[in-house]
């Protein structure tokens, strides 16, 4: 069996989930699909590195996360599109809160700082365990849970009283 064929078939089956992850990370649908295209091309190019005993979804999600980080860095160099972490958190308790509550939850996710957004996307949207997310992000499990708790607090504030 050619590993590239196995990867290709696996990617096809994973494509809906990969698009969902990308939407949670990148926000806009067009940006998300651009990200997915980069991920597919990278995964196909590196198909030989995938070991069949490793879960393909985690392998591809790691590629997606790294590709998204690359994209953020590239944009960050070009223009400061992304608010630093402190600014992202200020949305939750600052004067913008009423406006923020009117936003769709997906938009609220898109405003989370990248560290928070990726744990929300991996754990709450994609359903990875804390351990799996920690391995993928190469951080301790405690870091995953603390980022998740802070992201939750921010998003909870967006949901407001009806939550």
């Amino acid at each position, binding site marked *: 069996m050619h590993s590239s*064929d196995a990867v*290709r*078939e696996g*990617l*096809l*089956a994973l*494509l*809906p*989930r990969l*698009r*969902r992850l990308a*939407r*949670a990370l990148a926000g806009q649908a067009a940006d998300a*699909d651009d990200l*997915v*295209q*980069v991920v*597919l*091309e990278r995964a*196909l190019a590196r198909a030989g590195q995938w070991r069949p005993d490793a879960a393909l979804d985690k392998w591809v999600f790691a590629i997606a996360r790294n590709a998204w980080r690359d994209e953020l860095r590239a944009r960050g160099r070009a223009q400061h599109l992304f608010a630093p972490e402190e600014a992202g958190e200020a949305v939750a308790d600052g004067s913008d809160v009423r406006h923020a509550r009117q936003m*769709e*939850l*997906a938009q609220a*996710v898109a405003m989370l700082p990248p560290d928070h957004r990726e744990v*929300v996307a991996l*754990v*709450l*949207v994609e359903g990875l*365990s*804390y351990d799996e997310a920690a391995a993928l992000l190469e951080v301790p499990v405690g870091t995953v*849970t603390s980022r*998740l*708790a802070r992201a*939750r607090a921010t*998003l*909870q504030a967006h*949901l407001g009283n009806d*939550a």
Partner: protein
Amino acid sequence: MNPIDDDTLQAYVDGQLDAAEAARVDAALAQDDALAGRVRRMRTLNTRLRAAFDPVLDEPLPERLSALLQPARPNVAPIVLAGGRGADAGRRRAPRRWLMPGAALAASVALLAAALWWHAGNGLVRMRSGGPYASGALGRALDQSLASEPDAHAPVAIGLSFRTAEGNICRTFTIRTPPARAGLACHTAAGWELPVLAPSAPAESGELRQAASSLPPAVQAAVDARLRGNVFDAQQERAARAAGWR
């Protein structure tokens, strides 16, 4: 008993605790309304996040993405633009396959063959005694899944079930894994025979009737040709499953 800390509560909501720890939280929740309220709010957030992003799963796949993954197809050749330049490999558009409006009938034969060829590679269709039959996940879904209990994450969605004039039970289905296909399967002694399989927009997750109304014309025509009487309601569908679709 130790109080429940924030990390434990969050892990409880996310299903990350073992049974003993989860039971300890359950017991605390029963006695502490404030704690129960926090769990409820966290669960609401989880549910709304899924509701915000899960619909992406049912969107039609952009062709530029699925085309990158077509096995052994010449789509890797860059499209030559009018100016004679190859298209940017990173933004390559796939050729539009089998979607030409005028190509109707002759194309549908080639289209069915192509669909069968692709799904044969995925183990969803098996050729037997000259005809295509469901196998693998498709066969299992036809055997087990009920339209009255839809599963938005299942690779195959079941639509209508009904009995034909000949007395066989047939069921419509949609394969959600790309490329999305819809078809009709009829139960025979040899298994689920597939009289028709056609390209489809991915199934709406949900209602039986919606699934029926979004069937590709070829599948709808195959249903119309066989349907006698009414389609099964939830109770009849369940009874038919219990009877082995006979």
